[in-house]
């Protein structure tokens, strides 16, 4: 009987690939966010509002991840920015390899801001580094204030929390202060934004934050 010691992280292959992708982003001065959330929290809507505000200021590109269809890529295409759709065919998250392949279709040289919109899922995408600068987690008020406590891993691994659909607060059973308290108890370093894609509230502030991170 022999023992072979391995001591390696299970996801290290993904992590190695992600770190190669990260180097590529660095060389090109591209600021990259990986947007994660449950389905229906408003990832694509926030992306649309963001592109509207920023597309005359910086060059933006988008990688869309979905289980099926290119509906999201079609929504984003209307804003005349380069977009690549990844269809995972049932896969619950994006992996670095998929992003690497998608990047073959994007010329990063001019791109200052790349958004990777992950598959809508508050569990699995948390564990996969895609080479992004940071993960942006979107949680909508309709999902309820308890979600940070129920899905801690995603909150641990994200840097930004956008609380979306704040225009619905009067109609839903969600106390935004409790939501923030819960989220910050999981990860006190989260930077929090509050937005509504319907009224446009908070989008300006979020876009200013993005511009502050762009490297020229």
């Amino acid at each position, binding site marked *: 009987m022999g023992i072979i010691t391995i001591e390696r992280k299970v996801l290290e292959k993904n992590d190695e690939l992600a770190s190669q992708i990260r180097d590529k982003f660095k060389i090109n001065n591209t600021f990259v966010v990986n947007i994660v959330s449950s389905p229906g929290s408003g990832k694509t809507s926030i992306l649309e509002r963001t592109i509207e505000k920023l597309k005359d200021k910086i060059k933006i590109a988008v990688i869309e991840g979905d289980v099926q269809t290119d509906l999201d890529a079609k929504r984003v295409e209307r804003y005349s920015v380069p977009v690549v759709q990844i269809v995972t065919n049932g896969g619950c998250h994006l992996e670095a390899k998929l992003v690497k392949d998608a990047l073959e279709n994007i010329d990063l040289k001019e791109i200052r801001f790349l958004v990777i919109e992950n598959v809508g899922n508050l569990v699995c995408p948390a564990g996969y580094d895609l080479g992004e600068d940071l993960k942006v987690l979107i949680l909508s008020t309709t999902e309820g204030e308890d979600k940070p406590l129920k899905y801690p*891993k995603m909150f641990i691994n994200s840097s930004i929390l956008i609380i979306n659909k704040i225009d619905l607060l009067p109609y839903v059973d969600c106390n935004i202060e409790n939501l923030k308290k819960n989220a910050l108890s999981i990860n006190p370093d989260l930077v929090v934004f509050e937005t509504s894609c319907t009224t446009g509230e908070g989008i300006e502030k979020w876009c200013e934050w993005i511009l502050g991170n762009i490297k020229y």
Partner: protein
Amino acid sequence: MHELSVAQNIIDIVKENVPDTDYKHVNKILLEVGEFSGIVADSLLYCFDVIKSDTDFLNTKMEIKKIPFILFCNSCKTETTNNAGIRMCNICGGYDTKIISGIDMKIIEVEVNT
């Protein structure tokens, strides 16, 4: 529910660390899985059993050691824990803490019948 692709990653890593001729003789794979790694141990065991049937690892067992969630509190200068995966120190109630363990997933070793 990404345990299936995780199980495949595990087989790939084991293959890189064990000589080809020993694949069939791997008795056991020992993993350490953090309490808040986002992986369901039972589901991973099930997925491993499903995919191993087509490989040389047909007779390999997977053993999972669960790793507790541990924080280091910078105020108390001590290690602490909680069962919610939150960054709050159980002793002083503060949030100036660092995660020490419980969010990773590692392959520790394999046992080979020689």
